[in-house]
């Protein structure tokens, strides 16, 4: 069933790209970036999945013979990636706040003083 995760992650990435390419509102573009991030995170964390594996923690009394772990590395990578995504979002929000104050609009088609 891990195929569903993979497919969903690529679908989320495509959806995020669609949002970024088509939506004119800067906040919606930011949401598109977020969707791309979530899709990527889902992909990374799914890569480490083993059917039948348990959480990679040596909890006393919880480990029974024959148990095995899922891959812990992608989980750590996802953690990193989530923090990065959150920081990116904060930064873009800061930019948008200032742009709204300066240009008086959130419409991306009007924010084009640099062109040509």
């Amino acid at each position, binding site marked *: 069933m891990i195929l569903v995760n993979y497919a969903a992650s690529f679908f989320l990435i495509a959806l995020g790209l669609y949002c970024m390419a088509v939506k004119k509102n800067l906040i919606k573009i930011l949401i598109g970036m977020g969707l791309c991030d979530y899709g990527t995170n889902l992909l990374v964390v799914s890569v480490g999945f083993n059917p039948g594996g348990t959480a990679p923690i040596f909890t006393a009394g919880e480990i029974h013979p024959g148990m095995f772990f899922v891959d812990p590395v992608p989980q750590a990578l996802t953690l990193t990636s989530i923090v990065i995504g959150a920081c990116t979002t904060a930064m873009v929000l800061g930019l948008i706040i200032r742009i709204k104050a300066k240009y008086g609009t959130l419409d991306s088609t009007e924010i084009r003083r*640099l062109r040509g």
Partner: protein
Amino acid sequence: MNMEHYPILAIISLFLGAFLVALFGRLNKVLRNLIVAAAVTIPLCLMIALIAPVMIGGQVIGYWMGNWAPVGPWAIGIGLEVDALSLFFGLVVTIAVFVSGLYSFTYMNRDDSLENYYTLFLMLSGSLLGLVLTGDLFNIFVMIEIMTMTAVALTAFRVDYEGALEGALKYMVVGSIGSTSVLVGIAMLYSQLHTLNMAQIAAALPDHQNLVTVGAFAFLFLGFSTKAFLFPFHPLAADAHAVAPASISLMISGVITKCGVYGIIRLAYILYQNINEPAVSILITGFGAVSCFICVTMAFNQHDFKRLLAFHSISQVGYVITAVGLGTALGLSAGLYHAMNHTLFKGLLFLCAGAVQYATGSLDLGRLGGLAKKMPKTCALFLIGAASISGLPPFNGFFSKWMIYQASFEKGLDTGNFFYIVVCVVCLLSSVLTLASFVKVAQSVFFGQLQPQFENTKEVPLTMRIPMWILAVLCILTGVLPWEVLQKLVGPAAAAALNAAGYIQGMLGSGAAAGAGAQAAFSMEIGFWGPVSWLCLLLIVSCAVCLVAVLGTAEQKSPEERHEMDRRAGRTAAFTRDGFADAGRILKPAEKEGHYRNPVLSGTTLTFTGEKDPKYENFFSGEESEYSQVGGGDLFWGFKTNWRHYFQGMRRWHSGVINDYTRYGIVALAFVLLYACLFL
């Protein structure tokens, strides 16, 4: 201290400097500057200390974080791996950081919130150094993210500067496509190989070629080319460069693009080792050649000094990528040499632009002019940079460009593929256009008529000129001593890039590299010319050029005379810079924007047909209403008129809307994915 600690100490000294500045920077200005100076000097010294063992001795430094040495074949920790290629880019980074840091002390002294500036600047530097020295794929992603984040913040640092926020937002949003691509590529590789260490991936990949790894190649390639601002992403670079402080423009153009180049080299030469497949070579070379040509033509339309330089910057990176994509030893050496030269001369040009901005407060090519009298030293530095970028002999651009032409032509002859010959011609053509474009810049900034508002312009202080002189001297040195540079720096780096087995062994010990391709023989058969005689000949030619230029400026006429000349020549007065100023006397002030309409000269009066002529639209970018000088600043009016359909198309294409740029990125991603699936 042991030499193997040098790379990590270099990275950490930059980051630690950033935190110390954040902590104490607000208290004392002198303390802050001391911390910054120490933080940018230490890595440079450490990198220079590594030249002897790594470049000349051929040693590969493998350094496992936390002593987590590999268990069996599996690399469990993060490793720093410094081979000659990494060190080459490390040197480029540290030199640029050092110069930019020194320049900032004076250049930024009129801004506030400087502790944030230096924190971000040092973090940007640290991430760039960390990126080129690391041996771990996920660590590259982390460093790319720090780099993007801090570069965006620095682009927007002068928040009140026109367009700063907008340029930063575009950089962030469209750049996030690249970051996502890199992470998706890493995840796909991990799903197949279950490791993140680059040496181990390189050892395992040749046995695991399937759809997933090919897709990962496409994603990683697109991610790195986003960071190098290659063809569909070049508008971002133009926007970001134009609005960032000049010291940051140096970093973006000189180093951030180089990190993208470094990523592409690592990807194609070490990780996949597939650069010799014609499909990969054509893909990379094609992207390079297209960026090279489109950006150099885009530069013709610019009237902002730094924006023009930004387009040239991407054009030069296009050269580098073209050469890197050839896959031959000569091509790779040419690419690396040109990458280094580009950092030096483009850094110098950006710093000159910053000096002009510092002294006059303007970067508008239409308004500036005649600054050679007021700022002779900056002018001299600018001419050195312009000669280097245009590939004039004794300067460094000449040799690397020559090598690129030769490499692409040889590759075309060897493979019998007509594509490489076309690439060679495109490179030559772009070089001619670069020269033409810089003649225009020199003419409209430093020569020509001095505008009255800039009468009181003063030369910039010595503290700003010293960093510029460092770069200028390096430009001349690398141009005059090409063989030393080739043997000591570029040659070992190219050899290291072609030696994937050596890279794997350096990290995982011998035996791990059994699966990798045999070491490619590296030869130094570069050029058929006797360098000394060529140098003499070209010196004579350049002297002649200088003579003509000097004579040309000596013949300058006063505005009245020139207007009279124009009139006699039947030219319309509105088309020349000074003539336009005269026209202002004839015209009513309300009609000052006469260039929108169709001026017709009859007798001594100008009349306008009142119709907007599309012929002149080429000359304006940015705001339509913006005042722009068509005449004196535009030497190549005829060329642009003949090509106006192309330029109009380009203008429509660089619309400035985030959605459009994102769309180009998506189309490029789809194209690269499809190409990779079909041909790899």
